């Protein structure tokens, strides 16, 4: 029952993130999507991934809130209560699909390696390379946002 409620919340907040007119409200709805996704992962047994999703989502949302005001324009058009209710109903209807339909049933493996073993024994090289990727991206973002002094020349 908890999984169904969390998946319904996930779909409804995703719909709100797309259909709300004001960008800041859209970011708030996206925060809900990330929160429901993290709870869904934790409830399904992938607790570490849930915590990771929560941390990554918090960072992304902090930046989105900061840049959201800059990127959004003040518009007179605002979402009416009627439209809001319609979006929530549409999201609730869409969330019924995964509850009542089924196309895939996974087989539970008993001989699988644990998360820690997989990360450090099998994919340790990837973890190091991932650090390099993040460093490269940080440099790339710094270059993109770099402003030349002396009047932009």
């Amino acid at each position, binding site marked *: 029952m908890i999984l169904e409620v969390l998946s319904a919340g996930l779909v409804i907040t995703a719909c709100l993130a797309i259909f709300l007119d004001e960008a800041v409200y859209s970011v708030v709805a996206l925060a809900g*999507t990330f929160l429901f996704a993290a709870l869904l992962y934790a409830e399904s047994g992938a607790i*570490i991934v849930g915590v990771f999703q929560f941390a990554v989502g918090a960072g992304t949302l902090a930046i989105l809130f900061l840049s959201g005001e800059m990127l959004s324009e003040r518009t007179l058009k605002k979402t009416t209560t009627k439209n809001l209710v319609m979006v929530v109903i549409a999201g609730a209807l869409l969330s019924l699909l995964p509850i009542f339909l089924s196309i895939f049933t996974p087989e539970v493996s008993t001989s699988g390696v644990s998360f820690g073993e997989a990360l450090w024994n099998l994919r340790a090289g990837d973890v190091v390379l991932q650090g390099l990727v993040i460093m490269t991206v940080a440099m790339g973002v710094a270059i993109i946002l770099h402003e030349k002094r002396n009047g932009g020349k």
Partner: protein
Amino acid sequence: MDFVILSLVLLAIGVYGLLTKRHLLKVFVSVELIATAATLNFVMLAASTGVGVGEAFLVLAFSTDTAVSAVILALLIVVNKKYGVSDIGELGKVKESTEEESEVEA
């Protein structure tokens, strides 16, 4: 409860937003939703089969996803600061007018 269908629903919402919304931030939100759909599919499959390798891959994929988000957001900020636009349609017009100006200068 079928998580493949749940991720398909999320993917459909994200693609709809990507195709219909013109605001740059909404496009970014749509990309995030598509990434969440892919992640959800992967995590739930790994969690339901009890294989830890899937979760390990996911932790690595999260950082790549965040890196992509950071680059997209940096580009949006630069576009907004340089041209003052927050709409993809307007961005196309800016490109056309910039090309015309460079042709006149030449």
